[in-house]
């Protein structure tokens, strides 16, 4: 066995073509997931059981099952029903890309809403009391006081979640999508050089992950600029 470094260099451009799809999956599902997470968060902290109970069940189910199984249920499972095949969602659920986006968004919605909830619960009580003492309404307090502080508190965990999402996009290769891992698997099937090709793919992921981590670090620093020694 020989380790062929030139093969890594040859295969990197091919895999970078899969990078576009990886990033699309990541950004689209993170965006939908974040929107979903805010809705779920508001349901959970609403204090009304008929809103908070479904939100809790949703979080419990999506955090308790593997993403791979969620993708399979949506991609292979849903077409079992006539109703789905005739609904307006069929153009999305027919395509593997649409199914992956749906699965990843639902999954990230569950995780991110818990992260945001941690941020909201971390806001100091005294700050909110001060806000109500100067006459801010409940809504104003949530928008102007709780939200900015909670966002800052949530950044480290959200950064970790984004990296988990990046790693989860690799699962799209199991339903035939040719993102970075999918491209790597096809090249390995041709060349049978698993070390070189998969390590090249791993380099892409690790680079992306550290870029995201740096980016979130800078964002956190900016959001913490009111803290003197941060």
């Amino acid at each position: 066995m020989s380790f062929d470094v030139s093969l890594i260099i040859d295969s990197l451009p091919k895999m970078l073509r899969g990078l576009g799809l990886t990033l699309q999956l990541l950004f689209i599902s993170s965006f939908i997931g974040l929107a979903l997470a805010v809705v779920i968060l508001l349901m959970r902290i609403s204090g009304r059981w008929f809103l908070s109970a479904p939100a809790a069940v949703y979080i419990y189910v999506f955090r308790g099952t593997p993403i791979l199984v969620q993708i399979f249920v949506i991609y292979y499972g849903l077409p079992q029903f006539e109703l789905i095949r005739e609904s307006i969602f069929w153009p999305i659920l027919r395509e593997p890309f649409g199914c992956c986006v749906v699965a990843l968004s639902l999954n990230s919605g569950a995780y991110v809403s818990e992260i945001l909830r941690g941020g909201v619960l971390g806001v100091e009580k005294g700050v909110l009391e001060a806000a109500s003492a100067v006459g801010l309404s409940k809504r104003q307090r949530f928008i102007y006081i709780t939200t900015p502080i909670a966002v800052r508190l949530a950044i480290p965990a959200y950064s970790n979640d984004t990296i988990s999402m990046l790693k989860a996009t690799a699962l799209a290769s199991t339903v035939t999508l040719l993102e970075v891992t999918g491209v790597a698997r096809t090249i390995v099937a041709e060349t049978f050089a698993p070390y070189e090709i998969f390590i090249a793919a791993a380099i892409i992921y690790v680079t992306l992950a550290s870029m995201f981590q740096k980016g979130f670090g800078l964002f956190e620093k900016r959001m913490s600029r009111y803290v003197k020694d941060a």
Partner: protein
Amino acid sequence: MSELSGWWDDYFWGAMVVLRVFVVALVMSVVFGLIGSAMKLSKSRIAQRLASAYTVVFRGTPELLVLLIIYFGAAVTLTSIVQIADPNVKFVDIPPFWAGAFAIALIVGSYMTETFRGAFLGVDPGQLEAARALGISNFKTFIYVRIPQMWRLALPSFGNHMLSLMKDTALISVVGLEEIVFVAEMATSVTVKPFTMYIIVALIYLAITTVITLSVMALEKYANRHLQGSR
């Protein structure tokens, strides 16, 4: 649900395989985590560098990719080793069970490294000084003073790592381990009821993760029993 009849025992044995992978990978990942955190806390620069390279690489690479590298990589490596002895051998099969458990343990071990490091640092240094003042040996200090205090601190994130380890076991079906996702695939090709078959898989995972969550909660209560009533 009539289409499920005849598949229950396949799901049961599949779930047993999942639990076996879980236990094996959990033990390995704790070992990796302890070694990694010991290296990160050691005074040797080289050990520190190696351990941080380990955590950066395995926390940034998709689980599926690590599994594929280990599984196909081990196959290629072993084949070429065996071919030195016997050139007629075309291909060596790697058991997906061990490749999968090892790959998952490497990943979860990198997360455990950080958790254990934080927990070791969280033990009050005064406790260790007190132990030294009493003339307790380093080894005994580690066993009787450090471990009981660090595992209490490590428990919450340790529980989360156990959950992600459990969910990662689903990936091993990709390299052909006959666990529950694999059973669902087979059952689907016979019954053409994919939704029913995969929902059962999801429910089995949900049941197992629920049990893990509840046991971690009980363990946390046990570990913090000395704090009861103080707050």
